[in-house]
């Protein structure tokens, strides 16, 4: 059963259409992440689900109920805002009780819920403080506490971690994941951070220019991006895109790519994608971690491995891994190496390309072949 269904949802501000027919669905207890760059319409979509923005056309259902013109307070939702939006003049306790008081929940029940949620989030010690006296992370917890006391049908998170510093963000990400496991409420989570989306969500909707590019499980989105936008957006460093031509090598389908000085290289294709291509010209998408130092022995285990010469232009060690920028004809490609076998600057590396994980895109439609 779906906790949330969005069907062909459109939103226009004047002549500008910011959402162009969104279809989305969250099953009961599911954690759906809406991810996309700034201005892709993800926050507008969330605001429309919350009832804070009007619907131009289409349908939003929470449970079975059509809520297009239902006021936010009657939608049975709770929301955590990017700015936390805590009531500055109230203490943490009053902040958390405000919603229940508005809904005339009986006093003893209010107290019991408050105690339970405060214990869950470990904010009992903060209850008497005002938001101005809390750190960013504490405010974040209180904002979640205010949502949790409501016991709603749907939780909405609007970039809740983007105001925290990097370390705290990772901690809170883990906490949110744990919390979702424990509470098990259907959640819609907006973020521009693809790592957050990957780690938290059971399904991700990647949005761009007002439409959903792909809506699927994180690993499927990562491994089989629907188009070049999704491929480039999800994953860091981004996927390498290399223009190539479909050819054959020894009777088997292969790709030819241009190198410097008019030379070419031919890479054998691992599966039979070639039959699906509509033109000779394709774009090869290969993730940085599928490039490595070519090792003839490892080839036995990785049947899709092919080799390629490339000069190394830049090396960026990050500790756990080393990122190297290499030249391939007119292009720069980025590889992700184990620090032990990382190339050095200026080296001409014999690069292993794991074609088993390669994606091919149609250069005209930019869709996955």
């Amino acid at each position, binding site marked *: 059963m779906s906790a949330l269904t969005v069907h062909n949802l459109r939103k226009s501000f004047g002549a500008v259409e910011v959402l162009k027919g969104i279809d989305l669905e969250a099953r009961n207890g599911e954690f759906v992440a809406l991810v996309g760059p700034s201005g892709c319409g993800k926050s507008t979509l969330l605001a429309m689900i*919350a*009832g*804070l923005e009007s619907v131009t056309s289409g349908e939003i259902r929470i449970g079975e109920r059509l809520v297009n013109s239902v*006021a*936010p*307070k009657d*939608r049975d*939702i*709770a*929301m955590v*805002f*990017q*700015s*936390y*939006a*805590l*009531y*500055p*003049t*109230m203490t943490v306790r009053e902040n958390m009780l*405000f*919603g229940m008081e*508005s*809904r005339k929940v009986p006093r003893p029940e209010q107290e019991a819920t408050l105690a339970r949620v405060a214990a869950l989030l470990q904010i009992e010690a903060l209850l008497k403080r005002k938001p*101005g*006296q809390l750190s960013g992370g504490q405010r974040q917890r209180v904002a979640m506490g*205010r949502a949790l006391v*409501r016991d709603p049908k749907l939780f909405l998170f609007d970039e809740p971690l983007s105001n925290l510093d990097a370390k705290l963000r990772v901690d809170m990400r883990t906490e949110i994941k744990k919390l979702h496991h424990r509470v098990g409420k259907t959640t819609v989570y907006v973020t521009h951070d693809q790592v957050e989306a990957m780690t938290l969500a059971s399904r991700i909707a990647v949005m761009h220019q007002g439409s959903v590019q792909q809506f699927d499980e994180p690993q499927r989105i990562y491994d089989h991006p629907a188009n070049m936008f999704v491929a480039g957006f999800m994953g860091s460093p981004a996927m390498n895109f290399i223009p190539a031509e479909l050819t054959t090598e020894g009777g088997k389908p292969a790709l030819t790519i241009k190198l410097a000085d008019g030379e070419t290289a031919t890479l054998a294709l691992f599966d039979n994608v070639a039959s699906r291509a509509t033109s000779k010209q394709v774009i090869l998408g290969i993730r940085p971690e599928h490039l490595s130092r070519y090792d003839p022995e490892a080839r036995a285990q990785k049947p899709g491995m092919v080799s390629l010469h490339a000069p190394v232009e830049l090396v960026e060690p990050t500790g756990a891994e080393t990122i190297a920028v290499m030249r391939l004809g007119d292009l720069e490609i980025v590889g992700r190496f184990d620090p032990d076998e990382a190339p050095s600057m200026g080296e001409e590396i014999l690069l292993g390309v794991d074609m088993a994980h390669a994606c091919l895109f149609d250069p005209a439609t930019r869709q996955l072949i």
Partner: protein
Amino acid sequence: MQSVLEPSAAAAGPSWRERLAQAVPFLVLAPSLAATLIYVFVFTGWTLYISLSNSSLLPTYKFIGLKPYADLWANTRWNIAYHNLFIFSAFYVVGAMAVGLLLAIVIDQRVRGEAIWRTIFLYPLAVSFVVTGTVWSWLYTPDTGIQLFVRSLGWSNFTFALTTDRNLALYAIVITGIWQSSGFAMALFLAGLRSVDQDIIKAAQIDGAGVFRIYARVILPTIAPIFLAVMVVLLQFAIKTFDLAIALTNGGPGIATTFPAIYVYDLMFQRGQIAQGAAAAIMILAALAVVLVPYSLWLVWRKRREGKNG
């Protein structure tokens, strides 16, 4: 001042540029500091001294103690004036704030032609108190104003004579004052309402609060400091009330709408009772201090509390 001076005096040989840079804040502030020092503190001290002297037509410096104050408080007209001040201040401040807040909330609902409404309501503030007083005195005067107009419409027994009734004349001034100042209150309240984080309001909507509850519990408490600021500004308008009352009722009928400022003027420049006039001026200062001292103390306290809690 000291903190500005000390570093430049203590520094052992900074370049003239550094010296200049350090001296600039002081140089810029110096004229206004000197003016404040002389016109506020020196003259206040002088007035205080005069109020304890036997000055009559001209200031003299013979100290006679609190006698001018005793004379002042023995005077019925002064007592009425001081009493009027409190009644007027209370009604005027509460009234102007209430009307101003109401206007601000209405305009905050994103009404059409907002800028026009804002200008209309703010406009009275641009009119001087004397003009306001004169125009409203025409409106209030039974023979020329509202009473005449309504009677001309046919209600020949209609009576509207606030300014000629000694018990009501004060409220005529209150109403006029509210008309003049509520736009100012509105402008400040509106700025406050607009500064409230929209997310907070959205959060309250999702929390299930109605419009009234959102204003009462979330928005208005957030702009509480603005209430206090508006109140203090209006109060000091009220305490200085002079031209409005002069133009509107000239202190009448009889002495019903005398205000302390009017009385000070009278004593000093009409009747040659400078000592008593100074005493009355000091009493006005005392009334202002009652308002402003707690306010400044509160500001300091709040700053310190915020500093302590981060």
